[in-house]
């Protein structure tokens, strides 16, 4: 069987070769896009993913280092502290018995109204004397973006066993939350 290349190339051969070439170019182009997309995703991931937020207690310890830098702050919203001050939502969040006063300047997500909901806020520490449930503080957190971080617990509305539960981590050790614990 002779499989040597033909001397005369007819139109059909040329068509097949062109088709193969065109297909190859498309695949290489798609591969390039995928590599660029993968690179972008990896860079984004390395930059943001490993420390997505700081908890309230950590952010208070690092307050001096953080200065006026933007960062994400996470804590649970303390029920009864939420109020509207001329379009600014003011509330307090807690983590590991450390409390931060928050002034949030944009509309909060719908689930924000749920008691003890964990939230992640984007903003910065701002100087200003404030009073919170745990005493006085000379800083508050000025936030312009709020993400609600819902828990992994799914409870049916039909089950009435959980109504404004104080989360275990806060309720167990924070003296200043004892009143809320008793109420719930």
């Amino acid at each position: 069987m002779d499989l040597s290349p033909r001397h005369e190339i007819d139109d059909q051969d040329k068509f097949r070769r062109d088709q193969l070439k065109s297909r190859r170019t498309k695949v290489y182009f798609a591969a390039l896009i995928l590599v660029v997309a993968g690179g972008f995703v990896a860079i984004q991931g390395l930059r943001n993913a490993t420390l997505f937020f700081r908890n309230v207690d950590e952010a208070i310890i690092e307050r001096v280092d953080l200065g006026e830098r933007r960062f994400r702050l996470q804590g649970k919203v303390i029920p009864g502290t939420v109020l509207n001050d001329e379009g600014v939502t003011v509330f307090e969040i807690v983590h590991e018995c450390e409390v931060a006063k928050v002034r949030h300047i944009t509309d909060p997500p719908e689930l924000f109204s749920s008691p003890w909901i964990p939230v992640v806020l984007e903003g910065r520490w701002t100087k200003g004397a404030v009073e919170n449930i745990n005493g006085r503080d000379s800083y508050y957190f000025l936030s312009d973006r709020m993400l609600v971080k819902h828990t992994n617990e799914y409870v049916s509305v039909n089950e009435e066993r959980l109504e404004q539960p104080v989360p275990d981590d806060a309720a167990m050790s924070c003296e200043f939350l004892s009143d809320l614990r008793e109420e719930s």
Partner: protein
Amino acid sequence: MAEVSDQKTPKSKKSMSMTATPATRVLATVSVGASLVLLLLALIVSPADVVQGDAVRMLYIHVPSIWVAYGSFGLTACTSGLFILRYKRRADRGRHYDRIAGAAAEVGVVFTGITLFSGMLWGKVTWGSYWQWDARLTTTVLLFVTYLGYLALRRLPADPGVRAKRAAIMALVSFVNVPIVHFSVDWWRTLHQKASLSVGRRPEITGDMYWTLMYSALTFTFVATWLMIHRYRVIRLEEMRDEEMLQQQLRERRSENSL
């Protein structure tokens, strides 16, 4: 070039052009029926969540989709490993394993896409944002892109054996990301919540919601299996078509030389 030894001559033209069999038709019927029941359970029978309200119904799409995707990518990795170990010893040069790997990866990519899309919608309602670059979301989109790359590699023009070997290696490398995606919520701080169901831990989902989720996982598995079988058969038909085209060209060449 040697003929592909595992490709039996089809009994008729009809059998060549169809991918359905009585068994897959039964599976299709079961899948469609189960999906309809799932709609009923997810939208009507299952209760709303005390915090998320009706948005929790996304759970029945989002979570089973990624479970099925994990399973599909696991199957791709297993059959790719078998391909590498056994292709020399098998009469079909491991094509059977390669086809399963390809079909499973396609299904996995589709379900990862569904996971990402449903997650974005769910995220908008609950978090207040379609997308955030936290560890879970980042690794999931990386998983999606990696397996798209794997499927692109399978389409590259090359000798089928060489291409299958390259694809098998890439499938094994890509699978490393699956446990990273799953445990990312435990290893790093994420906006995405931790797993609600884990081996050895009490489920964090109550009553009807739990059973609807389990039923949903079963339904998605039926659908994925059905899709996978058809994709396997389509891949085989494509190989048969390519082989037939090659044989046709060889015949033409032979007849030209004999003139």
